[in-house]
Each structure stands twice: as C-alpha cells, then as structure tokens.
C-alpha cells in the first residue's frame, strides 16, 4: 500500500472576493485599482477622529446575488462586527466584518475533477472591508502605507473542509472564481488581488478524527495553490510519520522555493475581541429585496448546462465545459443564435477544439479572442452549405484569427477557397489523375483497397482541396467500374 493511500487529506478554503462596487463598503471613495497611493482614501478610510461608516447597499446586492447562486440562506438580519487588532495598514485599529450573524449561510458548489463530480458545501459568506497595503520597498528601511484599498468591499466565502486533494481544492477555487465573475460581483483579477484564497490543510488516517490544520495564506494563483497544498500535505505526513505533532499555525507559500513556512503559531494568534459595531445598524434584507435582485440575476451555470443538454442535445461533458466560464457560454449562445440550434454541436466542437486550443496556447481569455461569435457562425454556415470543406474551414478560421479578413465569406472570396461543385470540371481532373496513376489503378483492380484511397488523395490534391471529397469518391468509383 503506498503512503498516500494511508492518509486522507482534508482541505477547506476561505476566499476573499473583492466586490465590483463603484465606491467603498463604508465610504464614498472610489474602489478603482491603480491610483497614486492614498489618493482614493477619504476621511472615513483613513479613520480621522470622529468619522463614521455608512454601509454601501451595493455590497449587499452582491452578497444576495452570491447567496442566490449557491442556493444559500440569506439572513433577513445580519450584524456587522468589529475585529480588533493593530496593524499600520488597518486605520481604525479594527476591521468591520461579520462574525456571529453572516449575511449568507449554507449553499454549495458543484465541482468536477476529470470525470468525477462532487458537491462542496459552503459554511458561510460574509461582508467585510479590506485593509490598506504596507509597502516595504523604497522607503529606506521604513514602511510606507497606501490606504487606497482600505475599505474596499470583500465577500469572504468559507467552504466546509470537504476537499480531499489539491486537485479538488483547485477545482473548487476555479468553479468559485468562474461563478463570482458569472454573476458579475467580482472581476476575478487574481494579480490585482481581487480574488485570494487561504487554504486550511490537515491530514488524518482514513476514518480518524480531523487532524490539526495549518492555514496557507494569500494564494493568488491556482498553480501556487496546487503546489502549496501538495507541499504542505507531504510536510505534514512527514512530520507525523516521524513522530512529531502538527501545531496549529498560519503559513505562507514561497513560490520560489515551492515551500510553505510558518508565519505565526497559535500562541501568537490574536484575540480579535469581536463585538457588534455600534456605529452600524443591522443589515436587514427583505424578501422583496431578494426577489428584486433575483430578477436581475443571469441564468446560472447549472441551469444553463441542463438547458444546453435538452435544447441542443449536447453531452453532459460538453455542456459542463461550455458553462465553466460565462464568456465561453456567452460566445456559444451568440454563435448558435446565428447558426440555428441544429448546428449547436458543431459550434460546441469549434469552441472546444480550435478556439480553446488557440486560447490556451496564447494564454488568452475568451473575451480577448480575435474571432467573434458572428465570424465563427459565418464559417459554420459555409461548411453547412458545402461552400467549403472542413479542412478549408480550418484555413479560413486561421485567417480570421490572424486578422486577414473581416468574415469567412471575404476570406473565401479573396483566397479563392470556394469548393468546386461543377461535376464536369471534377470529372476532367479525375480523368487526368487516373491517366497519370495507372499503377494504382491496376493495384486497385487487383483487389488492393488501399490503392483507392491513394487515388482519392491524388484527386483532392489536384483540386487543391477545393473539391467535395464525397463527390470525388463517387466519381472515382464510377470510373473504375466499382
């Protein structure tokens, strides 16, 4: 029995999704990224004496959208609490968060690892404000503070510890990442810190009590998440197998070394002294408000997946793949609207084949694809009406991708790629091929089926691929008396 099989990995994720509101969660300052330091920090954000927070209801709309999209309970009344600790980029000396009564509880996400589907339950999601940033470079050994980010709204989404491998953790994080963008509450930009994950990792013998966990902080890419969890799991197994105990701790992942290292142990853990913020009223969410938000919510991935299967006859796999990202699903739907439902499968194949391959190779997002759904629909229309073959279609598509023409028709016209359908023209070509390849003709007559394929190939070559292969085959068969 290998070592991995003797251990069960337990992972729970805490994700901070920055909400796409115009202004901050408790002040009117802008949330736009990238301004000069401290230019987007108002009196409330820098915590001048006497200032007070005022809740931005747009942040609640985001939380309601999220709650609806994961089938969670949305609290009719939730409470903002103060989380007290000192840090230079935390201007008030406390963070306004939610503690005992969060706005969202329960719900869950469907994830897929390879062919296996799994439902991951969520514990809760709560609203809170982000802190500023401490800048340690360029200040001659001093620390600079940028409070532009202070007060940016966050939704902290906490999963149950139900992931059993780094692959599941990454699949969950990706599904969540896609969902928050899908419903338009987060831009998902991981480089700018709009979507950050902390992973709670422990190991245990199968069936045993939960092991002691260590929390890996601030994972800002899926690749690092996988590496960090894999390292951490191996480290914990080693520790236990060598007779040591795991101490609860907060750890950081160093991408350069590929290792996790402890930042602080449980002994230095803060006592945050949570208590309800007396400056803010409870957040009351009425059923009418929820209904109003529900009306604005886009169709959710799960529902769309079902619909793609029933309306377009797509396989579960195709439907899941196309609904993994809002951009992909939108592209698909716009193209199908033009080609008609009968060609949905063809559109799906193109999206998952040519387009996905190119996007992956070029590390681009579907939103930046140089080919539009209208252009793809144009290519498919010409395949369907036999103007071009599948092979020529790939050439046309490549030209569109390279920006060599505005539409399939323009490229077909300009490059003379139209399929030859004139029977007499093809017949003349076939005759030439038969005359030039007597050897193959004899071999075929002698019963060698392979020789026939060679003749088809020669004939297609003679037409530069523009002839309909079926038509060529039929003609050859006729001429050879087959």
């Amino acid at each position, binding site marked *: 029995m290998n070592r991995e099989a003797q251990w069960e990995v337990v992972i729970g994720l805490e994700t901070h999704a920055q909400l796409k509101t115009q202004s901050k969660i408790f002040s009117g300052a802008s949330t736009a990224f990238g301004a000069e330091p401290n230019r987007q920090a108002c009196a409330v954000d820098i915590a001048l004496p*006497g*200032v*007070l927070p005022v809740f931005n209801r747009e942040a609640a709309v985001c939380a309601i959208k999220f709650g609806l999209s994961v089938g969670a309970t949305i609290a009719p009344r939730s409470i903002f609490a103060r989380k*007290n600790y*000192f840090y230079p980029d935390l201007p008030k000396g406390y963070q306004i968060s939610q503690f005992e009564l969060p706005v969202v509880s329960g719900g869950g996400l469907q994830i897929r690892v390879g062919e296996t589907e799994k439902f991951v339950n969520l514990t809760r999601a709560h609203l809170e404000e982000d802190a500023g940033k401490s800048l340690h470079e360029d200040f001659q050994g001093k620390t600079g*503070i940028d409070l532009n980010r202070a007060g940016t709204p966050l939704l902290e989404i906490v999963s149950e510890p139900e992931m059993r491998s780094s692959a599941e953790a990454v699949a969950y994080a990706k599904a969540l990442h896609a969902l928050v963008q899908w419903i338009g509450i987060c831009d998902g930009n991981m480089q700018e810190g709009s979507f950050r994950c902390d992973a709670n990792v422990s190991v245990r013998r199968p069936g045993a009590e939960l092991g002691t966990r260590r929390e890996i902080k601030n994972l800002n890419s899926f690749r690092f998440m996988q590496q960090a969890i894999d390292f951490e799991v191996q480290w914990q197994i080693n520790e236990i197998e060598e007779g040591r105990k795991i101490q609860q701790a907060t750890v950081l992942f160093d991408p350069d070394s590929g290792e996790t290292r402890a930042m602080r142990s449980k002994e230095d853990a803060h006592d945050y002294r*949570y*208590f309800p913020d007396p400056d803010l009223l409870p957040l009351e969410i009425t059923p009418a408000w929820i209904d109003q938000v529900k009306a604005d919510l886009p169709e959710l991935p799960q529902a769309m997946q079902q619909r793609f299967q029933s309306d377009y006859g797509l396989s579960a796999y195709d439907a899941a793949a196309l609904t993994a990202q809002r951009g992909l699903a939108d592209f698909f739907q716009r193209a199908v609207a033009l080609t008609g439902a009968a060609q949905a499968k063809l559109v799906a194949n193109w999206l998952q084949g040519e387009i996905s391959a190119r996007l992956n190779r070029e590390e681009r997002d579907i939103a930046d694809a140089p080919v539009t759904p209208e252009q793809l629909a144009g290519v498919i229309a010409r395949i369907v009406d036999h103007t071009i073959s599948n092979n020529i279609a790939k050439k046309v598509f490549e030209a569109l991708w390279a920006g060599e023409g505005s539409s399939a028709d323009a490229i077909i016209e300009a490059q003379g790629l139209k399929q030859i359908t004139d029977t007499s023209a093809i017949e003349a070509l076939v005759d030439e091929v038969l005359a030039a390849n007597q050897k193959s003709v004899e071999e075929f007559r002698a019963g060698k089926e392979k020789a026939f394929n060679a003749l088809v190939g020669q004939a297609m070559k003679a037409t530069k691929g523009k002839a309909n292969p079926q038509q060529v085959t039929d003609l050859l068969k006729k001429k050879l008396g087959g």
Partner: protein
Amino acid sequence: MSDSMINASLRQLSAALAEKKISSVELTTLFLDRIAQLNPSLNAFIATDREKSLAQARAADAAPQPCGALHGIPLAHKDIFCTEGWRTSCGSKMLENFIAPYDATVVEKFKAAGMVTLGKLNMDEFAMGSSNETSYFGAVKNPWDVSRVPGGSSGGSAAAISARLAPAATGTDTGGSIRQPAALCGLTGLKPTYGVVSRYGMIAFASSLDQAGPMAKSAEDCALLLNAMAGFDPRDSTSLERPAEDYARDLNQPLAGLRIGLPGEFFGAGMDDDVRATVEVALDEYRKLGAVTVDISLPNSGLSVPAYYVIAPAEASSNLSRFDGVRYGYRAPEYGDLNDMYAKTRAQGFGAEVKRRILIGTYVLSHGYYDAYYLKAQKIRRLIAVDFSDAFKKCDVIMGPASPSVAFAFGAKSADPVQMYLSDIYTISTNLAGLPGMSIPCGFGNNNMPVGLQIIGNWFDEARMLNVAHQYQQMTDWHTQMPEGMR
C-alpha cells in the same frame, strides 16, 4: 450694556442683533474680552482665535436680513467636536497638535445658522471623567468656587457659560457628561434621545451611548439650540430619519395635570441631604404649577453603573484604537519595532483614566469573558430600557437629582475611581436606555453650590421636557444666578 448682554437670553441677543443695538463683532468681542480676562483662573477654554472668531462675526454682520434665531450669536464648542482649522484635542496629549480638517455635523449646522465660534472648550480626556480632572490641559475650575470641580466631562462648557464667557455651548453626554456639569455649575443642559443629533465629527467615546446636546442658561435657549443641532444626517447610520420639529413649540404650555414620576431608587441612600432638600423644594414648586407626583420604580437602575462600566469601556477600547501614532496625532519620539511604537505612543499619549478604561474594555471583550461581561451587560441594558417604558405608562416625565452631591473639591474623588463613577449614578441609566434627559438649576446646597434637578422624558419627548423646564424657570430665578466672582 455689557452686563445685560452677558446675562441675556438667546432670544434677547437675537433681538438686539436684529435691531442693530449691537453687532455680532461687538458681541463676540465682549465675550472674547471676558475669556481673556477670566479664563486664566478657570481654564474652561483651551483654544481661542480672535481673528477667526471676528471674521465669522463680520460675515454674520454682513449677511442680509432677515436672519435665523441664532444668527450672529457666539457659542463655544466642546473640544470633542472636529472644527475645521481648529486644534481639536479631545482633552488629550494624543491630539495635542491635531488640526481638524473638517467640521462635525453639529459644528456645520451652527455655522449654517450663522453662529460664531468663540473657541474650544476643555473637557475630561476623551470625555472620560466626571470632574474634568483628567484633561491633559489641566482641570477646569468651578466658577462658583474655584477650589471645586465643575463636573465632567463637559466641564469646560459648563464653566464657560456659568462664568458668562459664552452665551451657549455644545456638550456631549455618554453617561451624564452634559447633565452632571450643568447641575454642578447651575446651568440648563439637555441630552437628547439617542439618534436625534448626528455623531459625525464628534470624537467617539462609546458610540452606542454618546449624544451631543445643548448647554445654556435656560430651557428656552436649549430649545433654540436643539432646533439647530437636531436632524437626520446621512453620514451617521445611527441618526434617525424623523420629521423636523420645533423644540420650542410647547414652551408655554401649562403644566396642570402633568404626571411626574419619582423613582424610589433615585431618592434612597447615597444622596446628600442638601441635594435631597433642594430637590424636594423644586418638586413642591411643580406641585404648585399643577403637576402631580407619582411614585414609580426602576427596579434595575442599581445595575446601571456596573453595566455602563462594561459597555462604555468596551466600545471605547475599540474606538480609541485609531490613536496609534501611524497617521496623525502623537507618536513617541523614540521606539524600537512596530509594537514598541504602539506601546510607547499609547502609554505616553493617553492619561491614566483613559488607559484604565481601555484596559477594562479590552478585558471584557476578550475571548472567554465576552459572554460573562459584555453580553450580560447588554441584557441588563435591555431590562433598564424596559423599566423606563413601564414607568412611562404611569407618568409623563421622571424627576430626581442630577447628581448625588454638589460640586466636590479637587482631589476628593480622583484617587477612587468607583466613588467618581458613582457621581453619575442618576444619569447613566438614561444613556443606557437612549432616553432624553436634562438638568436644570433648582437652588443651592451646602457652601452655596448649585443643585441640579434632573428631568427624564420619554423617547423623543424633548419638546415636553423643555416645556416642563421652561415653566419652572418662569416661576423661579435659579437659572439667572451668576457666580459673584465672575462679574
């Protein structure tokens, strides 16, 4: 003329200004001169700026008629209110050099009403104190006897009005900080219902208890000031959206049939005999005005001081965390690492009473103690509010002493925090319940020191309380008395 002006009511000052008997510049100068002359012995003002005040007065004089009821009249702000361009210290070394870059809503509203800022008033550090002895800028002295405290924390406001250094002032009341100094200095002071006046720009002590209010010589003055101060403020989530009201509208209503509730708990042991006797005479006066007194009970009021000293320090410990030496305010000149910077800054920047309350507050909120202290105190708070709503089924207003004693001597209680905390025993429960309360002068006790009568109203019943106070002030002249030494 100056004598009549310093003793004039706000209505009289307004009339004199409107009739051009005096200009705002002259009136402002009169008070600034009195401050220059008398403040050194009282220490009520901790910031004045003659040029700034006179510029405001000149602008008031230049404004086209007709003007509002407070236009051109000077007033002074407790140094807890951020006042743009003025040092706003909150009585602390921590903010000794903090120039506020914005106006508190209350300051803004008085500016909009055309009032002139005379200066900033001394106070207990971060409003934590009942005697003004905790101010970093030194104690304020009681104008009736400079060897005695003026009360606190709005002691500077009370002393300034009592000595006629200002016709009116702002105060704040978290556990009695308007009413107790008003009582000890012989003034009228009103703490409105929680949420009636915006807290924006008022440096927070205990957010769920803090409420700003007017301090002046009479109930009528307080009504006019409250008209300017009150109102919904979108910048304060706890301020209440209610239709505007004229708090002076009922001043002249007769009191016949008024039911005055007398809680047994406010008349038991702990009250000095001179205070008791003076309050009893005042109640007789009310009976003469046609009011009836009914005995009521506030059974949980004995728990108000302990509950308050859990809740207020808990909130304060968090509210005062922003004073960390990072962005503004005091920072220790020498320190090692970050934690050392925090520790030294806060150890040096805060005074002993503030530190005591931060320690208490931090303790009661800490893991494992929260339920036993903070949560329990919040439950008691609810019970205290229920006591009051039950009581108001039997009476229209509640009366009792504002303070168990007259002003005490400096140092008398400063060594014993519990004795000091008990001087707010009659005022604290109204803050816990969010009710409005006021203190009006009702006579003199031992050593000829003023005694305050407390009037507690139902939620949002300020107009009736002001009526009740005003009718008494029509029959008596305690509120017009002025300390001999301040003439």
